[in-house]
């Protein structure tokens, strides 16, 4: 049962065809990786899936409904959350507040409710805070709650961003290079975390350069090269695909 189906999606920037006629599907509850050399179109693909770019053609069907061209916040409300390649935590807010923003889609208090701060709104806010702390505890960073988010170490910031995305209670999580800039131990922690996330029933689609991580945790792998899909299958099959080998020949992994 696929939760996400990408059908013939294409995107061109001026003279550059960033993504060309890419199709694949993601099974519910699976961990699927998108890999490819630099410039292969992976982040563009993520932006197409999460509403940051409208495709030139093709469609993205999520939970049986088309979402291509929808705004990022609309897609987030439907249960698709993402993280960013270059960490985007909210400045001038604590780690906890950052994660509390993740709960935005699951709460309702608007301008009027916020200004009046009646008991019902206060209760909702406490629930948001509790859930945010839960998420941080799940990842193991609850001690960082009161720290200013942007003052944390790189690895800690990545964890906060993950907690924030999880706090929204997504059905599918898009992780854009979650191991980028992490050392081997931190990467191993990320791998464990992703498995824990999957155990919660959340589908994971991950863009990654770290081949070890990808091979270890993925159920399926899609390989992109110059915007086109060149392979799509289980890790062992993809690993021995001649086209994939050719494209990666001589490339050090991250």
């Amino acid at each position, binding site marked *: 049962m696929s939760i996400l189906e990408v059908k013939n999606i294409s995107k061109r920037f001026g003279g550059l065809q960033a993504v060309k006629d890419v199709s694949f599907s993601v099974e519910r509850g699976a961990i699927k990786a998108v890999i490819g050399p630099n410039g292969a179109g992976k982040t563009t693909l993520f932006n197409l899936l*999460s*509403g*940051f770019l409208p495709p030139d053609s093709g469609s993205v069907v999520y939970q049986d409904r088309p979402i291509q061209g929808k*705004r*990022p*916040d609309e897609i*987030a*409300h439907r249960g698709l*959350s*993402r993280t*960013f390649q270059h960490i*985007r*935590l*909210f*400045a*001038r*807010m*604590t780690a*906890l*507040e*950052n994660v*509390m*923003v*993740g709960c*935005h*889609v699951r*709460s309702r*208090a*608007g*301008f009027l*409710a*916020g*200004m*009046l*701060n009646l008991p019902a*709104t*206060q209760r*909702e*806010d*406490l629930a*948001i*805070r509790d859930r945010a702390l839960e998420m941080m505890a799940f990842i193991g960073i609850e001690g960082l*709650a*009161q720290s200013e988010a942007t003052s944390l170490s790189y690895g800690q910031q990545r964890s906060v961003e993950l907690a*924030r*995305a999880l706090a*929204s209670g997504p059905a599918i999580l898009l992780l854009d290079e979650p191991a980028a800039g992490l050392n081997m131990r931190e990467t191993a922690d990320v791998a464990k975390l992703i498995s824990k996330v999957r155990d919660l029933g959340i589908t994971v689609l991950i863009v990654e350069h770290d081949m070890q991580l990808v091979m270890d945790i993925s159920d399926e792998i899609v390989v992109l090269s110059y915007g086109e899909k060149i392979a799509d299958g289980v890790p062992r099959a993809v690993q021995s695909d001649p086209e994939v080998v050719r494209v990666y020949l001589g490339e050090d992994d991250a």
Partner: protein
Amino acid sequence: MKTSRFTPILTLSATVVVIQLLTLASGKAFYLTQLTMTAYYSLIVIGLCLLMGFAGQISLGHAGFFAIGGYTSAVLTTLNLSALKDAPLVSLLARLGVLTARQDLYGGQILSVHPWAACGVALALAFLIAWAIGIPVLKLKGHYLAMATLGFGTIIYSIVLGTQRFGAADGISSVPPFPLLPGVSVSGDSSQRITNYYFAWLLVTAAMLLVVNLINSRVGRALRAIHGAEDASSAMGIDTGRYKLHTFMLSAVLAATAGVFLTHYNGGIGPSEASIMKSVRYVAIVAVGGMGSIWGTLIMSVVLNFFSLRGYFGSFDDAVFGGILILIMLFAPDGIIGADLRRMIGKITNYKHRSSNKSQ
């Protein structure tokens, strides 16, 4: 969390009372007039601080909304429909209390809009115009947004300056008092000076309470998120366009409210209230008070507005605010209420949520 949020509000209320008693004791009761006007001007910067510091959007035309509030109220309450008093619509409105009969300075009969109704119209107008302007303009970023709001302010200024109906260069005078309760009204009448002072500061206190609540709420976090990293906030389900627009509209209504009551307090309004100079002044106050600090902004608003109204800046009034803006941008872009003082204020006001790991 709740007790520490009320503490600064209570401190503010206490300070308001203390200051009034001090002016009484020191024989400087006339200071209350400038302090009352300061309160109304502070309403504008409170809204502007929310817009600039929290939602991260600049407005160089906010005096325009003040003018929309003040001029609408002035025009409607000085309208004279007594010649039409037998027309069906007019007599209906008079019977409903929307129109009120009163006497002008020379004993003549006037049938004008009741201040409460005029206030309602003024705020609704500000609300709608902010919505209409905001939709296209808030899609702009940085310099472009600044210029567009500058354009808006200039338009309003030109309209009030150039239209006979709005009194052109002379503005509108003879604006009647705004009745609040039997025997209590917003007016420049010196016998009502103390009451007016407290009413103005009551409005400011209420505004501070609402805005501080908002900042600490889900919406406040969403606004700060938009300001911090707009793409990421969108990915977290925040409709950034709608939130910026609503903040813009809220700040416009606050400015218009100030316009309505200050106009009744002063008994009139002139085109200078809509000028770019005023808009710059409001931005300067928010900048020097610290865009991210609503209390810092209020403090600086009181200090600067009071000094300005007392004439301490002499004929260099506008220059002072322009100079402040330049100096702040160069040397203290986060405001002059220093980091240590801000942390202290922050602890008291719970602005940075330091304390509340233990729920109450």
